[in-house]
């Protein structure tokens, strides 16, 4: 009998408590697979934790599904909203459409702080240092010299009580950051099931880091708990975006096992939703393939004038048969066809030669039949001083006047150059933004190791509300899971494109010279000091100097004898 009671209690403890009313948080794991028209396969993992609690320090003292390490940092630094992405590779907007989460290459972080934070800069510095430890990323290199507070580009995505004030926002990008296993492991540890169960078992570093593009993301915000938005919940989305190239393989077929090296073992027991979605919109138009096993359900989603076909696999129903695999078998030979290009995409590059001066050019392509309003945020590091009076925005040979312009000149070693423009792009046009810049000469100790490799410059961010949802995959602002993007037609579809990050080679001094330079320059100073000192302190006299050595010797002897005489006297 006693054993029976123990058993009941322990069963309650193990299974009952997580679902009891005391715990008010939920965990969902989802995977979206989308074959792209270019022959790539886009895999997007999203692990969502929703916690029905207010955002304050007390909340994070006890956590259940929410990662405590991250929660404590968020609570201590009074962060309202936090977005981190660690990315390797460049998302090709022109061919791949839009990802669920946009991320620039390297590390990118932005955060909204609470209104009662008094010194945002200090809080920001200490937040990034803490996160650097948590994710094993070089986020500790974020400081005021590479952070900015853009006014228009980044708006809070969660709920806000008052109109947002961008002085509580900080944005920074570290394009030099290299994303690797050391970032993936701590990322997986934040998940409730770690990488032991559920979809996270698919995240094997060997397969992830072989992709054309991979991006880890952490997105934290407050969302409405109910329709009236009387209470708020905390939402944490951990995302992994991967782009695989199937065209280089022998066959175009792909499967979970081929992409991730392992089949799906089962759902995470703590997850309330555990789904795999396969976007079949392009099936039978661009590609022709068969899915095995066939999905539980097929969903047709209408969104922004676009129809989307999705196959949905609920892992729970499949996993009772043990490990299983989802495969797409192509019935036609390899294809890589051209689809409609994305509505809006951009390129950035540097023109000019030599290490003295150049121009930064950002090209914005608008393929829509209507004009588009976009926000262009240029984040220019302090070692590339730009001249605002040389800004040129040219479209079809004509100069365009920006609707709004914000500029804050940078300061050496303390502040980047911040330029934000609101532009109206004419329909079917290529708009070229250009600005002239100088290459700064730095102190010899400020150059990184391998100085001639160059300096990275973070991407420009282009924000726009697209009128149609072509190639659009992102979730609506009010949604938390991938399911919320089905049939989610809205007035506009927010995209935040990141351009290429650039490598700039600054002129370098000779690093082996410090002693020589100090000596030589001081010699020049001494060359002036000596004669000037002589001229000002001495007077000219005529002196006999043509004596030969015999006379010199004689006079020396004479003087000696005279001295001895004087002494004897």
């Amino acid at each position: 009998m006693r054993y029976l009671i123990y058993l009941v209690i322990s069963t309650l403890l193990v299974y009952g408590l997580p679902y009891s009313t005391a715990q008010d948080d939920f965990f969902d794991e989802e995977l979206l697979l989308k074959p792209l028209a270019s022959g790539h396969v886009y895999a997007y993992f999203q692990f969502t934790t929703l916690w029905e609690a207010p955002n304050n320090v007390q909340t994070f003292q006890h956590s259940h599904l929410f990662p405590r390490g991250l929660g404590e940092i968020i609570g201590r630094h009074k962060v309202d909203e936090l977005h981190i992405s660690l990315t390797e590779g460049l998302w090709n907007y022109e061919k791949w459409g839009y990802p669920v989460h946009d991320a620039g290459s390297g590390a990118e972080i932005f955060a909204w702080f609470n209104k009662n934070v008094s010194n945002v800069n200090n809080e920001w510095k200490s937040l990034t240092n803490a996160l650097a430890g948590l994710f094993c990323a070089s986020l500790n290199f974020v400081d005021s010299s590479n952070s900015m507070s853009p006014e228009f580009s980044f708006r809070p995505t969660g709920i806000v009580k008052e109109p947002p004030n961008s002085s509580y926002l900080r944005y920074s990008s570290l394009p030099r950051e290299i994303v690797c296993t050391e970032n993936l492991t701590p990322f997986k540890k934040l998940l409730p099931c770690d990488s032991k169960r559920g979809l996270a078992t698919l995240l094997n570093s060997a397969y992830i880091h072989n992709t054309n593009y991979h991006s880890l993301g952490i997105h934290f915000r407050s969302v409405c708990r109910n329709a009236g938005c009387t209470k708020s919940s905390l939402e944490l989305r951990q995302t992994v975006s991967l782009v695989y190239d199937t065209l280089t393989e022998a066959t175009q077929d792909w499967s979970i096992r081929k992409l991730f090296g392992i089949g799906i073992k089962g759902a995470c027991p703590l997850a309330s939703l555990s789904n795999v979605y396969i976007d079949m919109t392009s099936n039978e138009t661009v590609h022709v393939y068969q899915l095995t096993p066939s999905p539980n359900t097929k969903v047709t989603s209408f969104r922004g004038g676009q129809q989307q076909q999705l196959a949905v696999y609920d892992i729970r129903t499949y996993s009772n048969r043990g490990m299983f695999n989802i495969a797409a078998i192509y019935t036609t030979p390899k294809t890589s066809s051209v689809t409609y290009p994305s509505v809006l995409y951009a390129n950035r590059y540097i023109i000019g030669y030599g290490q003295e001066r150049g121009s930064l050019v950002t090209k914005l392509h608008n393929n829509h039949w209507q004009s588009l309003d976009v926000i262009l945020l240029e984040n220019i590091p302090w070692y590339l001083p730009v001249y605002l009076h040389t800004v040129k925005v040219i479209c079809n040979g004509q100069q365009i006047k920006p609707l709004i312009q914000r500029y804050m000149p940078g300061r050496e070693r303390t502040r980047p150059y911040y330029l934000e423009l609101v532009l109206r792009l004419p329909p079917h046009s290529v708009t070229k933004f250009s600005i002239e810049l100088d290459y700064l000469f730095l102190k010899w100790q400020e150059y990184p190791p391998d100085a001639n490799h160059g300096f990275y410059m973070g991407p420009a961010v282009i924000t726009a509300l697209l009128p149609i949802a072509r190639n659009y995959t992102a979730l609506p602002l009010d949604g938390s899971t991938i399911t919320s993007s089905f049939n989610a037609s809205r007035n506009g579809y927010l995209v935040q494109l990141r351009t290429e990050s650039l490598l700039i080679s600054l002129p370098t001094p000779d690093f082996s010279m410090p002693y020589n330079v100090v000596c030589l320059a001081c010699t020049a100073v001494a060359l002036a000091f000596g004669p000037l000192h002589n001229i000002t302190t001495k007077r000219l006299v005529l002196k006999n100097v043509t004596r030969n050595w015999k006379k010199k010797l004689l006079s020396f002897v004479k003087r000696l004898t005279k001295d001895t005489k004087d002494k004897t006297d």
Partner: protein
Amino acid sequence: MKKQLSCFALAGAIRLLLMTSDYQTLITDRVEVSTALNSWKKVTEGVYLHNAGIDPYSGELFHESPIGLLAFSLMQKYLSIFALHVLFIITDLATAWILASTAQLYMAELIAREKEEKSQLPAEKAKDNICISVRDTASASILYVPATYLLNPFIVLNCVGLTTTVFTNFLFALTLFSIIRRSVFWSCLSIALLTLQGLYPVTLMVPATIYIAGKNSQTCKVAVAKIILTFLTLLVTLLYASYYIMGSWSFLWNTIGFILIVPDLRPNIGLYWYFFTEMFEHFRWLFVASFQINVGLLYIVPLALRLRQDPMLLAFSYLAIAAIFKSYPCLGDVGFYMALLPMWKHLFRHMQQGFIVSCFLLFCTVFAPTVWHQWIYSRSANANFYFGVTLAFAVAQIFLLTDILFASVKREFALRYGLSREVNGNKAKLLLE
């Protein structure tokens, strides 16, 4: 007169031709011509920011004084590009004209002084004194001073490169002219304006005071007090006017602070850029301080005491020292003090290093763009090459300065004791003791 006019016409034509040619952008982008302090591109940026309602001193690109900002914004507002070019040329020509008048007054003064000195000497000594008389060289000097200014390639490049040094040089010429005219107000005003822009010209107050105070010891103290007071009043007024224009004192950090602390390490013809690029961080302040003392303070008193009889030569030495050792020197500064050289044509005979110095200057002028191209564009050389050239250029200028000062000392000696170098029939050597 005809010669002078043709010189002016030629100089104006050369400048106008170069300004309208494609070489203009090439010249204006040269680091030797445009520095952080005088580049017209940075002025344009500052004016643009000011007009856009952004404080130009919040950035790192604009370092002119607020009064300069006001003047340049008026220029850019009302003048077309061509009119602007013409304004630069006219200012340069006016500088040369003022220099010519200065030289004329100074030569008259030198001749008078020489006469006086000779009359004090015993008759037989004065007779065998065969030093070159100032009287013989005066007319040539008066012609050569504006000609050297107008046709000096350094000055031509400076004017074609549209640097603000064109206006500073104008103010320098005005200062020298008003000093020699003994005009308290004008000399103080121009020195105050120059001080606000470049800080180092404040040293010119010493020759100005010596000139204006004169030799009369009774009125001397009053005159000194008067000129210093006038200068301080004008400087404070100008500073306050700057504050009134900008609405804050932030400009001080970006003008005077920028000159003193040397944060900009873009190469120029001076010694600072590579020195502070390669500096160990914990020694930076020590060397910044010692370099600034070297250019600004160290030589003021000794030279003033030594050259108190010839304040114009004193002003020349201060200008030369500043052009060699200041934090952001440019070719315009070098060209300006070189244009004054013909005023001491009677000293040339006593100079020894003329050939070496001119060779140095010539080679540096040719080598600087070459090694710059190799370093920055073709990457087949490194920074040391350019540093070597700037170092040689500075050393050549130092030789020039010390040579002319030695020559003045020697001539003084020769006037008193004759040119013969014999003591009791034996050959002797001139030595500083």
